[in-house]
Structure formats: structure tokens, C-alpha cells
């Protein structure tokens, strides 16, 4: 196999010699495109428009949640454009479907990158793993990602709230403060293999260590929809609470079995695992009694102005749209990007890099309760807040979730991202 490389070198050499090649960059002096008036612009920005990209899964396994989010974001920008747009320009949204296929996502990213000013959303953890480094290289803003800590490694990525680890640490603090768990008690953590689940586990471990609790981990995959075996194992261990980092199917299954076998312990989950239809499953009663949700964004029916505006805005665009947690979240994410764009506009730099800088200048953003706490993106590598919402199921409300309170426990504050 020495042969191939020699040929490769030879060929590379030939190409270099034969073709008219140059290593002098004629544009080396002028960085980042032309200037227009007092605002510098780059890719995706013209005199009248700003194009933002949404690279999401419209035909794959997450197409349902993804298409709702895309629809909400488009509704937001429609409304924003009607109100006069951003920086005197209309915002156009370019939606592309990667179908949860990383290869397609990378290719699509390549085609979109020169045409957009920022990515309103890039969805899917394998997709983020593949695309985010490229976006970092191109200094492009990426929003609409999940809450896994891995996103913090990318200064160009805007995390919509805090991370799963901080949420889980808050959950443990809450269990100790409000639910009476004490040293020596056990807490089960049932989590998806992957960045989401392992991040939640890490946060829970951190807080448990501080409180002298013991963590009982159970790793599962999205394919496991019957968690009887896990539930039995947790019961066997005698856990006093369970933290679940999975999807709605696993919530229903675990809560159902735990409830049925009489394991009456609190179950705390994260935003992506909630859907109102869970209350119609056999696990409904148990969920009403024992389920808690820790999240960075407000639930659909939250009694906060930001969420109400989001719901109204989306209803106006699509009266039949879904009533789910994606609505306030996606609306809020659009607000985050808008803030970054406006900051960039103010700074006179609407180039991709300028927008990322605009995001980093968002240091004290109040979203009228759409996101818990005030958001500070000034420190790359740190989440913008460590405050989370705690919600409880309520079958009288659309979306099935009632916002209870905000939490910011000591271990959520002390959790370190190194």
C-alpha cells in the first residue's frame, strides 16, 4: 500500500505544475466584503434583506418537533418583518431539510453557508457534532441547538438557556431542599446514551456528591420503550427519586411502571421529553402526582408575558399549530438571534463575525419569562444563566404543563464546565 500514496503525491504534483496556479491571494487585503453606508455586510446580507438559515430535520425521525420549531420561527420573522424588520432589512428564512443524515447536513451546510448571515437553527446532535466545527471555522452564528454542554465549546453557538447538567444539578438541589432527600438516599438517573443523557448525568452526579446522595445510573436508548426492567432495578435499589433524560415514550413507560408497582417517588425530566398527550396514557395519573419538569424555556401555558406573546404570535400565523413546548422555545430562539442581529447592526457590522460578536454582546437580556433568568452570553464557555423553571403537569392547561417556580440551587451555580 505504499504505491497509492506515491501516486497520490505524483498526481498532486502534476496538478500543481500543469495548472496555472498561484498562492497569492488577490483579496488578501480586503476582509469580509463590501461596506454599505455605515454597516459592513457579509454573506446573506443585502441592502434590503438578511437571510438566515434553518438546517433541520423535516423528513427524518425528529421531523415532527423540527417542523413545529421551523414553523414557529418563520411565524416570528414574518411578524418581525411586518413590524419593520431588523436593521432596516427584511429577514428571509431559508429552510433546508437534512433528514437526520449527517452527510446531507454537511453538504447542505456548505451550500447555505455562503448565502446566509446566520443559522437560526441547526438541529440534531449528530448533525451538530458534524456541522458546528465547520460553522466555527466560518465564524457563523448557530442557534436553535439543544441544551447539551458540548455546545458551550463553540463560541459561535448560542445556547437557549442553561444546560442539561445545570438543570439536573438544580433538580437534585430541589429534591434535597423541597422533597426532603437526605444524605445516603439514592437517586436513579435514567438517561439516553449520548450528549443529552450523559450531560444530565454529569450534573446530577455533581450535585449528588455535594449532598452525599448516591446516583444509580441506567443507560437506555431511544429504542427502549418498555422500561420495566429499569424500573424494577430502580425499585430494587430503593431510590427516593428519579431523574430522566430521555423522550416522552420513556417518561410514560417509566412513570407507568413505577406508579403501578407502587414506587411513589418524584420523577424529574427535561423539556424534550414532555408532550401533553402523555397525560392520556396509562401513566397519566402517576405523572400528575409525581412528575416534575426542569427546563430553560417556559412551558406552553406558562403565565409569563413572553410565553403568552409567543403563543399569540404563533396562533396568528397558524391557528391549528401544535400546542407544545416548542412554541415558546422556538419563538425565544428567534428573539435571541434578533437581539444578536440588532447588536451587530448597532455596531455597524452585519458580517457573520459581527453577528457572533453581537450575540456575545447580549449580556443582560430579559425575555419576559420566555427563558428562565436573565441571559448573559458575555462569557464563552459558560451558559448564559443557571436559573431553570420547575413545572408540574396539569391536565387542564393546553400543553399539559403548569409553570411553578424558578430554581437556582447552590450546585447549579458551582457546576463547572471544564
Amino acid at each position, binding site marked *: 500500500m505504499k504505491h497509492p500514496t506515491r501516486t497520490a503525491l505524483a*498526481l498532486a504534483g502534476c496538478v500543481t505544475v500543469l495548472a496555472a496556479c498561484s498562492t497569492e491571494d488577490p483579496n488578501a487585503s480586503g476582509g469580509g466584503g463590501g461596506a454599505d453606508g455605515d454597516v459592513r455586510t457579509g454573506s446573506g446580507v443585502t441592502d434590503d434583506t438578511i437571510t438566515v438559515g434553518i438546517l433541520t430535520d423535516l423528513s427524518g425521525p425528529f421531523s415532527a418537533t423540527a417542523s413545529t420549531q421551523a414553523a414557529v420561527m*418563520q411565524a416570528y420573522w414574518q411578524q418581525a418583518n411586518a413590524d419593520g424588520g431588523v436593521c432596516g432589512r427584511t429577514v428571509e428564512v431559508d429552510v433546508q*431539510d437534512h433528514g437526520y443524515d449527517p452527510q446531507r447536513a454537511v453538504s447542505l451546510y456548505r451550500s447555505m453557508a455562503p448565502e446566509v448571515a446566520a443559522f437560526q437553527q441547526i438541529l440534531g446532535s449528530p448533525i451538530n457534532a458534524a456541522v458546528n466545527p465547520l460553522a466555527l471555522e466560518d465564524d457563523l452564528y448557530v442557534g436553535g441547538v439543544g441544551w447539551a454542554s*458540548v455546545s458551550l465549546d463553540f463560541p459561535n453557538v448560542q445556547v437557549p438557556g442553561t444546560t442539561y447538567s445545570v438543570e439536573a444539578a438544580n433538580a437534585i438541589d430541589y429534591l434535597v431542599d423541597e422533597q426532603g432527600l437526605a444524605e445516603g438516599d439514592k437517586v436513579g438517573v435514567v438517561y439516553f446514551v449520548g*450528549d443529552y443523557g450523559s450531560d444530565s448525568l454529569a450534573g446530577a452526579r455533581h450535585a449528588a456528591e455535594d449532598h452525599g446522595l448516591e446516583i444509580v445510573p441506567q443507560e437506555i436508548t431511544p429504542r427502549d420503550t418498555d422500561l420495566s426492567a429499569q424500573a424494577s432495578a430502580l425499585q430494587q435499589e430503593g431510590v427516593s427519586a428519579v431523574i430522566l433524560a430521555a423522550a416522552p415514550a420513556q417518561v410514560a413507560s417509566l412513570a407507568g411502571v413505577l406508579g403501578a408497582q407502587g414506587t411513589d417517588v418524584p420523577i424529574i425530566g427535561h423539556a424534550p421529553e414532555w408532550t401533553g398527550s402523555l397525560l392520556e396514557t396509562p401513566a397519566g395519573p402517576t405523572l400528575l402526582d409525581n412528575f416534575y419538569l426542569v427546563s430553560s424555556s417556559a412551558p406552553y401555558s406558562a403565565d409569563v408575558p413572553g410565553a403568552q406573546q409567543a403563543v399569540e404570535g404563533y396562533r396568528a400565523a*397558524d391557528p391549528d399549530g401544535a400546542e407544545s413546548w416548542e412554541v415558546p422555545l422556538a419563538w425565544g430562539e428567534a428573539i435571541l438571534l434578533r437581539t444578536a442581529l440588532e447588536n451587530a447592526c448597532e455596531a455597524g457590522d452585519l458580517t457573520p463575525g459581527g453577528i457572533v460578536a453581537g450575540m456575545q454582546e447580549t449580556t443582560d437580556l430579559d425575555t419576559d419569562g420566555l427563558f428562565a433568568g436573565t441571559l448573559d452570553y458575555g462569557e464563552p464557555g459558560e451558559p448564559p444563566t443557571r436559573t431553570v423553571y420547575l413545572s408540574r403537569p396539569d391536565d387542564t392547561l393546553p400543553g399539559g404543563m403548569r409553570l411553578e417556580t424558578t430554581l437556582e440551587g447552590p450546585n447549579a451555580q458551582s457546576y463547572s464546565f471544564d
Partner: protein
Amino acid sequence: MSDLLRRLPAIVGLVVALALPLLFNDFWLQTGLFAMAAVVGAIGLTLLVGVAGQLSLGHAFFAALGAYTYAWTVGEVGDRAAGLGLPAVLGIVLAGVVAAAAGALFSPISGRLRGIYLGLATVGLVFLARHLMVNLEAYTGGFNGRTVEPFSVPGFSFSNSDPDFLAVAGVEFGGLHRLWYLFLVVVLLAAWLGRNVKASRTGRALANVRDSEAAAAAMGIRVARAKATAFVISSAYAGVAGALMALAYGRIAPDLFGLQLSIDFLVMIVLGGLGSIAGAAAGAVFVVTLPLVLAQYSSELPFLATPGSGGLDAATLARLLYGAAILAVLLFLRGGLAGAARRLRHRRPPRDTGEPPPVAAPTAPTATPEPSLSHPSVPTRSKETTP
């Protein structure tokens, strides 16, 4: 003369492949990189499935092995995930070698099982691979994966730097352009070697084992070893394909090497036409690019619903069309894409040698009646003597 004619499509194809980067935007360049990586893997698989008659759904395992081997060999010493900091060329070679070695380790099974049975047994490898990738965090970076050092030779890097700027004929040659030619070289090499294997003593032995194990044994061919050899060869191809994928991505994670990848490879070679190197290449390009093309064009259709509204949206339509395209090829094209091309070529009278072979046919090739020179569907073994 006829020899030249026969090679003409290949020559035209090569010229086109060399020229394309001058015309393509980044999207198509990137897609091309994935397609070329897929071509290498598909050639390996068609040698196994088409020539030796063995099925493998474990290609993703070997591709993953190749990708991580490359990343580990070339990776910086003291990075987040372990690396040896060795030259990139060595990395690609090792990717093939390590995958081949793993294929050899599997020989107790690959030498004893046949066809579809082996295919199902190899499904296990994909899950094993995932387990290892997630758990061997020190080498693989765990679930979040690890970055891949760009390919480089001393003084020249196949990335956007070193040299920071390179232009050929007025077109700026960034990392994607440079990688394109690197991949092209590997693809050509892979095709050339694949053709040689097919036409060599080993290749003939493999085909004989496929058609009759008893006859092969009677000719002095070690049947189990031949089957294991085919598996090793195809594993090596998959390993190199994995290394190319790693380069095309720039960052690798376990999710990139799921069962779907194995299945995609299989779809490529079956659509392309089993046993044909050109077919495998065509199938790979088909599978990698068709969904993108469909997505591109279906989004311009006016009657479609917007995503999220629950109606038939463009993305869903594109996916449905892709499924339908697979069905159409299997239902209407005997011998896959390669078979169709062969029939096209055979359609004109053999003495007519003055013109290049037709590139496209106006009508569906299946409309012509099957000549007697066709490809038999299943080798007939009518009479069996029962002792």
C-alpha cells in the same frame, strides 16, 4: 481502435472529474467528497457481495474502524482524545490495514457462513462498533466524537491553510478542492485495484466459490479461506472509505457509523448492479446525491404544504421519491444501473465502431426485449443428485 473506444467513457469521466471542482460550489464539492468516499466503500462491498457472493451488513463497523484509526494515528499527541501524531499518509494506510485485520479476526464466521446468513450475522458488528465507540472515550472522544486532523504531506495541507491561498486557473482552491483531488486519486486507485482483484487468480477463485463451493474445492481452492479473504479485502476498502469519510467530515462521532450506513452501502451496490465496479460507483453517486437533488427540486413545487402544517411537504416528498426510485430500479432494471448501461451498449450493432457509445437513451432501456446474452437471474442448478 476498439480498445480506445471501450475506454472512452472512462477517459471522458476522468476528464470531467478533474474539471468539476472548477465549476462546483462548496455544496457540490462536499457532496462529491462524500460520494467518492462511498464509492471506495461500495467497490469493496461489491467485491464481497457481487464477486464472492457473500453479504455483509457490517461495513459501517469497518468504516468506523478506519475513520477512528485515521483520526487516532494522525491526531495530535496530548489532544482531548489520544493520538499518535504520525503522518497522514500512514493514517490512511493504517485505516485499511486495521480494518483488514479486524475482518480477518471475523473469519471464523465469515469463512463459514454464506450469503444472507453472513449478512445478518454482521449486523452484530455495527452494534458492537457503537458500543466501543461510545465507551472507549480515551480514543474515540465518546459520544461527542473527536476532531480529525486534515490530510497533509510535508509543505502542503489538504485544508484551507498551508498554503493559505492557492488558485488554479483563476479558481480559488480551498480545502474542499484539494481534498477532491486527493479523493479522486484514492477512488481511481481503489477501482484499479478492485478490477485487478476481480480479474486475478483470487477473483476467479472467489467467483467460483460463489457459483459452486464443491467445484471450487475440487479445483484446489480453500473455500473457507477464499470467503474469509473476500471479507478481509472488503473490510480494507471499508476502512479506507471510513478514513475518507473522516476527512470529508472533519469531525467524527459514533452516530455517523450506524446501521443505516451499512444499509446504504448495500443499496448502492444492488442498485448499481452486483459485481460491477462501475456499477458500485454509479450506485454510490446515486444514493449520495439523489436525496439532495430531489430535496433541491421538490422544494420548488408549488402545491406542497409548509413544514409543520401536517400536509405533504417538500422534504417528505423527496424522501418518498427516493424510496420510489429504489423500487423502480429494482423492479425495472435487470442488473441494476450497470446492467442497464450494458444493455444500452449492446443495443447498437457491434460493427458500428465509428462513433462513441451513446451517453443517454431517449427511451427506457427496459423497453427492448432481452437479448439472449443477458445476465441469468439465478444460476440454475436444476438437477441435484440425492444419494
